[in-house]
C-alpha cells in the first residue's frame, strides 16, 4: 500500500463526508476565479463566498493584531476593546445580550457570557476559568488548554446557508476567553433563530449551549448607482457592525476606498496598516466574465475608522455616514 492507494480509497468515501467538509470550507477563491454565481440562492453565493473569506481572513488577522488590541487598557466596552476601539458606543451596548449560560467541562467552567448581535452576525464571548499568565488581548501563541467550538443557527427550514464560524482565543483578566463569530449571508436575519454552540475540550468533554434569539437588528440598504471612472457603485449595505460597498463595471477594475464623511463633517479614513482591517477592507477587485464584473468591499464598523493619521479607531454608527469617497470622488448617500 502506498499513498496513492490511500488517496484512491479516500476518493471513494461516502459523499456525506465531502458535503460536510465542503460546506465548512466553502469560501471564495474558486468562485472568484470562475466569476460565476454559485449555489443555493441564485446569485448570492459568490457574494457569500467573498464575504466568508474576508471575514475568515479578518479573524486570522485579528490574532496578528494582538499587539494593538492587547495594549489597550480596560475600557468601557470590553468587546470594542478587543478590536482596539477605545470609544464607548451606546449603539453597540444595546446589542450586547447577556446569556450567562454556564457548564462544567472537566475541571474547567465554561460560560457563554454574552452575545453581541447584528442582523446576520453574532459575536459570542465565551469565558473559561482557565488561568493564563498573559496580558489582556488576543493570544498570539496556541494555548496549552484549548477548546473546539462549533456554533450555528438551527433554521426551521433545512436550508444550507453558507456560514462562517470561527473562534479566536484571548486573555481577559488572566483567564482564557474566546470570541466566537457566526456569520451568515446578508439576506439572513438571525433575530429570532434558534442557536446552538458546542464546546469540546481535548479530552472529548463536550457541552452544548442553546438559546433562541429574540432581537430586532437594524440594517439599511442604500441604492447609489453612481458612476465613477467607469465603475458603478450600485449600493451600500449597512448593519450594526458592517458596511459593504457593491460595485460593478464592464471590465476588470479596482475599487479604491478613500474615506467616509460623517454628519458633523468629520472625515474618517480606514486604517490600512492594521492587519485585520487591510485584509477585511483591502483593495476590492472586480472580477468576472463579460458583464459579470462585480466587487464588494467590506468594512467593519467596529474599528479601523479614524481621523487622518490617527490610530484612535472609532466605532461608526452607520446612520451618521453622510458620504463615501470612492476612487477619489465623494458620493453623497444621505
Amino acid at each position, binding site marked *: 500500500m*502506498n499513498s496513492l492507494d490511500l488517496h484512491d480509497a479516500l476518493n471513494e468515501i461516502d459523499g456525506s463526508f465531502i458535503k460536510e467538509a465542503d460546506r465548512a*470550507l466553502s469560501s471564495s477563491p474558486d468562485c472568484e476565479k470562475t466569476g460565476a454565481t454559485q449555489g443555493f440562492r441564485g446569485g448570492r453565493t459568490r457574494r457569500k463566498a467573498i464575504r466568508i473569506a474576508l471575514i475568515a481572513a479578518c479573524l486570522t488577522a485579528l490574532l496578528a493584531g494582538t499587539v494593538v488590541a492587547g495594549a489597550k487598557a480596560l475600557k468601557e466596552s470590553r468587546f470594542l476593546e478587543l478590536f482596539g476601539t477605545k470609544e464607548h458606543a451606546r449603539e453597540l451596548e444595546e446589542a450586547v445580550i447577556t446569556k450567562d449560560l454556564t457548564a462544567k467541562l472537566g475541571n474547567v467552567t465554561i460560560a457563554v457570557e454574552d452575545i453581541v448581535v447584528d442582523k446576520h452576525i453574532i459575536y459570542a464571548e465565551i469565558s473559561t476559568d482557565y488561568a493564563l499568565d498573559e496580558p489582556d488581548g488576543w493570544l498570539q501563541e496556541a494555548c496549552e488548554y484549548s477548546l473546539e467550538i462549533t456554533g450555528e443557527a438551527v433554521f426551521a427550514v433545512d436550508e444550507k446557508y453558507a456560514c462562517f464560524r470561527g473562534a479566536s482565543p484571548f486573555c481577559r483578566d488572566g483567564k482564557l476567553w474566546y470570541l466566537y463569530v457566526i456569520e451568515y449571508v446578508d439576506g439572513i436575519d438571525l433575530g429570532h433563530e434558534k442557536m446552538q454552540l458546542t464546546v469540546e475540550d481535548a479530552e472529548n468533554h463536550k457541552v452544548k449551549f442553546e438559546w433562541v434569539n429574540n432581537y430586532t437588528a437594524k440594517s439599511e440598504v442604500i441604492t447609489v448607482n453612481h458612476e465613477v471612472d467607469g465603475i458603478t457603485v450600485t449600493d451600500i449595505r449597512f448593519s450594526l457592525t458592517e458596511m459593504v460597498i457593491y460595485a460593478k463595471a464592464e471590465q476588470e477594475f479596482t475599487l479604491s476606498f478613500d474615506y467616509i464623511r460623517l454628519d458633523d463633517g468629520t472625515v474618517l479614513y480606514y486604517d490600512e496598516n492594521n492587519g485585520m482591517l487591510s485584509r477585511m477592507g483591502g483593495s476590492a477587485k472586480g472580477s468576472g466574465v463579460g458583464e459579470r464584473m462585480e466587487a464588494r468591499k467590506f468594512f467593519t464598523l467596529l474599528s479601523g475608522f479614524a481621523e487622518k493619521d490617527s490610530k484612535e479607531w472609532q466605532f461608526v454608527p452607520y446612520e451618521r455616514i453622510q458620504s463615501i469617497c470612492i476612487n477619489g470622488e465623494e458620493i453623497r448617500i444621505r
Partner: protein
Amino acid sequence: MEEALNDNQIVELFRSGSDSALSELQKKYGAQMKRIAESILADRRDAEECLNDAYMGAWKNIPAADPENLKAYLLRMTRYCAFKRLRTNLAQKRGGHVQTMSYEELSECIPDHRRAESEQDSGLKEQIEDFLRNLSEEKRTIFLGRFWFLYSVAEIAQRLGRDEKYISNQLYYLKKLFRKHLERKEG
C-alpha cells in the same frame, strides 16, 4: 445580468445533450476542478489533459449518474482522473512531474508493515470512513480539506478562520491518529 445555472439546470443540460452543458459546468466548477488537478499533477499539460478527461467523464456519466451533489461528483471525478494519470506517470518513471504535496503527506500515515500490501487493499475505504466518523466535525474538515480537497495549510486556515499554526498542529495530530488507526485495524 446573467447568472450561473443551478446544479439541477446543469444536470438537465447534460441529460438533454445540450452543447452548453460543458461550458456551464466549466463556468461554475472549472476553477475548482483545475485547482484539484494542478494540486496533484505538477505538469500543467498533464493537469489540462486530466481536466479534459474529467469533462469527458462528466459528459458521459452525468446523465445516468444523476449526482445528488454535482460539485462533489465533479471533484471526485477530477481526483480520480488526476491520480490515475499520476499512477501512470510514476509507472513510467516520470518522477519529475510529481509534485511534493499533500498526497505524499499521507504516506507518513501508512504503518510500515502495511507498505508491502497489495494495492487492492479491501476495506481501506471503510477504515477511512470509520476514522473520519470518530473525529469531530472540525477535525474531519481539516483532514479532508488537506487530503481530499488538497488545500494548503494556509488556505484551510483562512477558510476556517484559524491560524496556520493551529491547522499545522491539527494535521500533525491527525496524521499520527490516522496512522494509529490503520495500525490498530490491522492488528
